[in-house]
């Protein structure tokens, strides 16, 4: 069954790469894009995504603050940080919020491994 995915990144290039890597495994999945945490919160409320890929360093509220809100509002949605910020403090916050963590540069194998590890939605 096709899933809805939300890719949140202020870099259009990174959104395009993530989109391609998701589609190379799941051609029929529906992918929405947002450029800020604020947009992500609005779009998640509308689209109810199965998975949110979320950058950290973005204009506005940033990815971690958005993740905290999204975790509350969408407890069943998989949320994975996809970020260049490889500091332990970010990974600790990701663990505390129950988020996945992938470091940039974005690699197709990492995206596929993460997608394969997710539990299928009901």
């Amino acid at each position, binding site marked *: 069954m096709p899933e809805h995915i939300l890719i949140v990144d*202020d*870099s*259009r*290039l*990174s959104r*395009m*790469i993530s989109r*391609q890597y998701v589609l190379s495994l799941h051609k029929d999945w529906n992918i929405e894009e947002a450029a800020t945490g604020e947009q992500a919160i609005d779009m998640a409320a509308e689209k109810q995504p199965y998975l949110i890929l979320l950058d950290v*360093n*973005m*204009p506005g509220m940033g990815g971690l603050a958005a993740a905290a809100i999204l975790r509350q509002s969408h407890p069943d949605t998989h949320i994975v940080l996809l970020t*260049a*910020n*490889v*500091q*332990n*403090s970010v990974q600790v916050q990701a663990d505390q919020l129950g988020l996945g963590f992938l470091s*940039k*540069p974005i*690699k197709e194998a990492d995206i596929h491994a993460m997608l394969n590890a997710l539990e299928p939605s009901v």
Partner: protein
Amino acid sequence: MIDEMSMSELEADSLMEIFNIGVGHAAAAMSSIVNEEVRMSVPSIRITTRSEAADELGAGLSLCGISQQYKGAYATEAILMFPERASFEIVRMMVGDLIPADELGEMEREAMCEIGNIVLNACVGTLANMFQKELEGSLPVFRVGSSEQILNPGHDNADPSVLMLRIDFSLERQQIEGYLAFILDMSALRDLREQVRLYIARLESGMAPDGL
């Protein structure tokens, strides 16, 4: 040099080694982006001014630079620089066939920002982990211009002394050379020196350091 920085030999050696490790992570990130080996020099470290540092890079060189400001345990400006003529090729190496070439031109600036974000954070993040401190980074800023315009964009006439760490790197197959620089003012140097001392103290007390 060590006297100028008020560092002991062990502290200066530790600082170089910590940056070497950070630079190694930056090289790995860069290599992963462009899919080829990246050679990086040993960091050179010196007290200088921004204008002098720009002269050393070459006054006639047209560069593109991606910079980010970091604050926290110490403050630093990190800058990734390439010859302007190489930027499109680097972006093309990053995306391969994922994005058509005719769409790529308009995205070049944005793509370079993302490349800078990844490479600079690979290095700065490693340093933060080793110092067991958090550093907060700004969004990347992209500039094109002379080495003076990249390294001294505020045209600071006072041009005070700064600590400059510079690493030269090359993508050999494409014959592209670039530069990675970290600039700290004198108060930030004191904060950095304190982090180095704490790092050595942890090492000497038998606590396993992060990042090695």
